[in-house]
């Protein structure tokens, strides 16, 4: 029997640097590795000794796409330590910021990174000629996510206005209304994108790992709940307990730390697919309809359906953000967004949000001058790498059993990696 080694160095159209290494020997899948070779920037060591105000600013630089999420998560950790209660208006603005990054991230990932795979291209650019309407609408959707982040955060990458206790700047009610209209006008295209991504053919595989997502009793929470939940293990925990629930470990072939459920030892998936499984019933009306139409509902365990899940989340985000913008314009939220006063004190706290790519935890310990004693950042992709490798193996075994050639195995594995929407710069940080 023959021995085949598949080696993809520097897999393209993902954020960051990673290689795939698969060895198939005598019809048996021997090795499956996702080498994360992203340069380590050592953020946890960098923020040590720095004042709390600088920490969200620095942590934002972990990742360009998820920068809003890193900022909000760090603010939540700091506010937990200082005992700061922000206003409802500030909470609404943070939701907008996080959702803005969903629009940016999901549109970029789906159309620029993932879609070319299914349309037989190496990049999105040929679509400019081939499917100009799709290309333009996709870019317009991405641009709208940028605009939302720019209007709320002051910039599409690395927000400026979000600080401890509130925001330093807000747009006018007219601008909120204008945004609401733009968001609503994008809805039709977003709904059609759910159908489009559903129509792409994907291997039928089921992940065997657990799933982790933010939980809340009555809503599709992304930035305002402290409760995280492992769905299979039926284990809910407060984010301050993250170290007891999640076990981080290192492997030699990856610069990113890996993660597993501490109590069961299983790897797990976090991201849009896990959120859909956790909070499907709380999707907005149009998003739920779009999901139901393509048959996306819990339990859904095919990791390729993370793509469709993201498309559904775009519909959901547009609906939610339009409503938030209208309510902000009408001044329906309690309080102003001006930073609330606070007292610096020592302590430990964890911030938790659902970043576009999944659960994001920032653990912070501050001294009584508000300087960082210890920081630990657990990113979605770092959590996903172990489960991705497990799914790559399931996929490779299935394809080999079906008699697929090496180049087909390689292409499908690359597709799977992209379906996970990994952010390797996040995962290493």
């Amino acid at each position, binding site marked *: 029997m023959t021995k085949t080694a598949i080696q993809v160095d*520097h897999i*393209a*159209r993902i*954020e*960051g*640097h990673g290689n795939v290494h698969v060895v198939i020997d005598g019809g048996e899948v021997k090795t499956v590795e996702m*080498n*994360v*070779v*992203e*340069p*380590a*920037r*050592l953020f*946890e*060591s*960098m923020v040590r000794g*720095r*004042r709390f105000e*600088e920490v969200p*600013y*620095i942590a*934002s*630089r*972990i*990742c*360009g*796409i998820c*920068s809003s999420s890193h900022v909000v998560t760090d603010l939540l950790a700091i506010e937990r330590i200082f005992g700061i209660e922000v206003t409802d208006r500030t909470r609404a603005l943070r939701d907008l910021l996080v959702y803005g990054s969903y629009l940016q991230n999901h549109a*970029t990932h789906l159309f*620029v990174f993932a879609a*070319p795979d299914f349309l037989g291209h*190496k*990049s*999105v*650019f040929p679509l*400019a000629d081939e499917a100009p309407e799709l290309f333009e609408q996709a*870019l*317009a959707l*991405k*641009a709208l996510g*940028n605009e939302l982040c720019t209007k709320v955060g*002051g*910039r*599409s*990458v*690395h927000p*400026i*206005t979000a*600080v401890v206790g509130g925001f*330093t*700047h807000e747009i006018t009610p007219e601008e909120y209304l204008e945004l609401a209209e733009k968001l609503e006008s994008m809805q039709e295209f977003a709904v059609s994108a759910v159908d489009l991504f559903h129509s792409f053919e994907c291997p039928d595989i089921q992940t065997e790992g657990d799933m982790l997502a933010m939980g809340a009793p009555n809503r599709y929470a992304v930035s305002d709940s402290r409760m995280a939940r492992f769905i299979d293990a039926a284990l809910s925990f407060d984010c301050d307990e993250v170290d007891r629930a999640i076990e981080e470990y*290192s*492997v*030699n*072939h*990856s*610069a990113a*730390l890996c993660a597993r459920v501490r109590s069961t030892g299983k790897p797990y998936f976090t991201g849009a697919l896990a959120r859909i499984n956790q909070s499907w019933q709380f999707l907005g009306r149009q998003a739920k309809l779009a999901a139901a139409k393509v048959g996306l509902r819990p339990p859904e365990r095919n990791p390729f359906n993370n793509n469709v899940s993201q498309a559904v989340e775009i519909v959901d985000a547009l609906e939610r953000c339009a409503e938030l913008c209208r309510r902000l314009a009408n001044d329906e939220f309690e309080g102003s967004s001006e930073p609330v006063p606070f007292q610096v004190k020592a302590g430990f706290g964890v911030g938790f949000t659902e970043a576009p790519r999944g659960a994001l935890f920032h653990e912070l310990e501050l001294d009584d001058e508000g300087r960082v004693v210890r920081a630990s950042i657990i990113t979605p992709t770092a959590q996903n790498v172990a489960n991705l490798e497990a799914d790559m193996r399931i996929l490779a075994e299935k394809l080999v059993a079906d008699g697929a050639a090496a180049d087909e195995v390689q292409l499908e594995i690359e597709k799977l990696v992209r379906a996970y929407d990994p952010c390797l*710069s996040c995962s290493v940080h």
Partner: protein
Amino acid sequence: MNENTNVQGTSAVPRVVVVGLASCFGCQLQITNIEAHLMEVLGQIDLQYWQLASSDPMPEEFDVAVIEGAVTTEESEHLVEELRQKADTIIAIGACATTAGIPGMAAEGFIQRPGSVYDLVPEACGEMISPRAVGSVIDVDYEVRCCPIDAYDFVDVLQRALYGSNKIDSTATMCGSCKRNETGCFYTKGVMCLGLVTRAGCDARCVNLGRPCNGCRGLSPDANLPAAREACRAAGIPVEDFDKALEMFNQTDPALRQA
């Protein structure tokens, strides 16, 4: 010059590669964020390699290399040297590439840092070296500053690289921008702002939104550090805090050691 004439004077469309080193990828994203103009910009160049957007491999020959990120491994040091040899024009984009930026913060006491994050540093990390700006490894022809870059600044610099320009980059500090914008000065409120010593050019974007400058454009060669420290004292701001804050984007700048 006709519109397909590049800076080397040949008639071919300039071949461009975009390479990412240690960074958050935010500057490359900013390039994709010029959505409406993306195809106009791409229409002027032959984009031969852009890993973030395409699975085409890096070619052997090209004219312009756009580099994002700081140099943090021996592997990336060799890569930028190779890019310098192959490309006629090097454009460094973003704080990481131009000042070593946020990754550069790890330069202080670098040797102990990997061991403080990993129990055992994985082989996949490569041969890590103390972070440095691209310009401290090779000669850089054009810079686009800020963290992240402004997408239109990038288009402007790309035009200059492709078609030539006699524009000289200003080295002035930010204060003139705030005076023109009439946004007032944080120092009058006892709040530290690094615009006092940071290169102008962003129109004081953060200050305009109510937030002090964090210095992402890098220390201005015209900065008067002793006078800035005096301004801190006068405003009741600890000078140590000012010096510490400056490290954020200037850790590897020798000017900080001298002054």
